[in-house]
């Protein structure tokens, strides 16, 4: 592996101050060097923090969401967002509250209009009792991180939707589908891309030609009609889970070609490198050369391209669900939530329905930053 080439034969007896930095760099493993370079990319580090937080939300979604996705209140549809306020003058210390809703009927259209009433106060607290759930399907609990102090009160911090469900809870619970579909899809296309790209790049000749033709064939089919027709082909009576896996498969079957090209290109250029020739002359077998020598030295590049592929998949799922061809209600994902916002008339009444789009934007942006930072630091030996 690369580490061996850069490890000094014996530790230097006396550290020369001018050489100290280089010596430290020479002793560190390639991954440590990548990390050092990555840390300098401020935006990438910030992006990484956001992405990590997003996945923490995914893991603890039931606990973090104030209500479950099925909790709705048909008397409070399209209720506007409430702002959390803090009252310092409360008798027993600090009290958080939101203003409650006053409901009126529009005299002409008889539509219900909910406005915030500054005189009404709905108290809030940490760890209130609320909808019961099973954490990760095993631990039953009914406490949530934050919410109305009394379970009968309704609080919609980001407003409510057409059915009177809490948008904040929906966004948190929807993150599970939206963010995992990218990871699983990329994992599948990674395996396909690595396999076919590797075979193509290492063996060359006939297998290479064949695989390149298949890739060209897949790339020649226009993406959108293919998406549309494939997802229309998913039977309507499949449950949300089956549909989810079908959509993921569609996304990754279309997504592996780009990755295969990257892997092939790396293999082609690495094949000519001195250390590969040296390994071959030493009598290493093909499998050993590929996995012991070539794969480690290209893994950072591959990881960088993987990071760039995840946001593309998330955007793909969002667009598909938005068109009504991806996941469908009652499954909750950011794309499904945005489907509600398709109509301009609805947006006029409830502009907060666009907030799931903000969630998409922030995560995708953060992931792009991370990918950009990884790409810059992928080759730590390049100055």
């Amino acid at each position, binding site marked *: 592996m690369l580490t061996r080439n850069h490890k000094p034969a014996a530790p230097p007896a006396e550290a020369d101050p001018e050489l100290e930095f280089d010596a430290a760099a020479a002793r560190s493993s390639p991954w440590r060097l990548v990390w050092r370079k990555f840390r300098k990319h401020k935006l990438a580090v910030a992006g990484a923090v956001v992405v990590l937080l997003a996945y923490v939300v995914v893991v603890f979604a039931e606990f973090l969401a104030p209500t479950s996705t099925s909790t709705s209140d048909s008397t409070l549809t399209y209720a506007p967002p409430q702002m959390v306020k803090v009252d310092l003058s409360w008798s027993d210390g600090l009290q958080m509250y939101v203003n409650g809703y006053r409901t009126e009927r529009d005299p002409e259209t008889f539509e219900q209009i909910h406005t915030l009433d500054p005189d009404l106060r709905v108290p809030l607290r940490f760890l209130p009792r609320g909808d019961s759930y099973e954490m990760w399907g095993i631990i039953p609990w009914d406490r949530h991180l934050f919410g109305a102090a009394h379970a009968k009160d309704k609080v919609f911090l980001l407003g409510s939707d057409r059915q009177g469900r809490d948008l904040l809870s929906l966004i948190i619970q929807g993150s599970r589908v939206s963010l995992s579909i990218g990871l699983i899809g990329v994992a599948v296309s990674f395996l396909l891309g690595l396999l076919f790209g590797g075979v193509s790049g290492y063996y060359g000749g006939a297998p290479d030609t064949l695989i390149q033709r298949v890739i060209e064939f897949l790339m020649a*089919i226009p993406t*959108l009609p293919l998406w549309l*027709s494939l997802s*229309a082909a998913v039977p309507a009576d499949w449950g949300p889970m089956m549909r989810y896996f079908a959509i993921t498969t569609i996304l990754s079957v279309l997504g592996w070609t780009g990755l295969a090209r990257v892997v092939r290109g790396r293999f082609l250029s690495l094949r000519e490198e001195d250390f590969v020739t040296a390994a071959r002359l030493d009598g290493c077998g093909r499998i050993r050369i590929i996995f012991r020598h070539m794969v480690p030295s290209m893994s950072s590049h591959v990881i960088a391209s993987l990071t760039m592929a995840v946001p593309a998949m998330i955007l793909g799922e969002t667009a598909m669900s*938005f068109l009504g061809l991806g996941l469908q209600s009652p499954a909750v994902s950011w794309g499904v939530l945005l489907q509600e916002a398709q109509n*301009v008339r609805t*947006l006029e009444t409830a502009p907060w329905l666009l907030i799931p*789009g903000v969630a998409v934007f922030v995560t995708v942006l953060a992931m*792009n930053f991370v990918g950009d930072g990884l790409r810059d630091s992928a080759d730590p030996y390049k100055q």
Partner: protein
Amino acid sequence: MLSFLSRRVMWMVVTLWAVSLASFFIISLPPGDYVSTLQAEAESRGEMMSDSQLSALRSRYGLDQSFLAQYWKWISNIVFHGDFGQAFAWNSRPVSDLIWDRVGLSFFLSVSTLLFIWAIAFPIGIFSAVRQYSPGDYLATFFGFFGMAVPEFLLALVFMWAGMRFFGTSPGGLFSPEYQDAAWNLGKVLDMGAHLWLPIVIIGLSGTAGLIRITRANLLDELYKPYVVAARARGMPEWKLLLKYPVRMSMSPFFSTVGWLLPGLISGETIISIVMSLPTTGPLLLSGVENQDMYLVGSFVLILSTLTVIGTLISDLALAWWDPRIRHRYEGG
């Protein structure tokens, strides 16, 4: 060069044949067919269709034949008679008529979007590379990431909401209500322009963002190469030094995207067109998919892939013309 061309064209034919078979297969994947869609619609209206009616419809459309027979009927008509079949859901109007009706707007939209992208992205990309880490570069970088992260349809929705909220008009559609049925005159043309600039900007935004990133990265790779230093050492003026070689190299993405114009003429930016209700070919395609209109969608996919393949070839040729190194590789191999 000639042998390269003929080999490419041969592969193109093979690819297209595979694409046509695959696309026809994919379209036939969903259970049921157009007649069962009709039946479901009739039932939702409370009407019943008899079995004999249904089978009469099926044989009329050739839906009772085997998959290969249907495929053969479809593809042979296209190849030998240029007949793309009929769209069931549109009273059996010829597919080619339907598509032609909408090609004009799609064409206009994709050409103007591409021009918009090029006009904005190249100057910004070049500036951003030459003045790396300047405030302008940071601004361009931020804009680039922004454009890549925001889904187009979301942007369209935000603009439409803002238009509704602050200007009281919906920017969707092609014409204002008062011009909808009017005959063509200057006012109508101006009105259409007022409606079309927004989709062009929205569709162009993510393309612009991507192209800025690519131009910047390519140019940065070139700017510090020895030939640039050598030319500078010889006293070449800086602007000439920049424009003559590094910028020329960084223009490669321009040529590799020229070919995309072709499929773009037909695909008509489906999602944006749906959100902003523009009568391009995109919504037609979506409705075809929903109705399981096999000939309509199949023809769409076939035309699009043909144009993609031809477009790629044009791009490769343009790139070879632009970059002597690539030309040399083709001639050698």
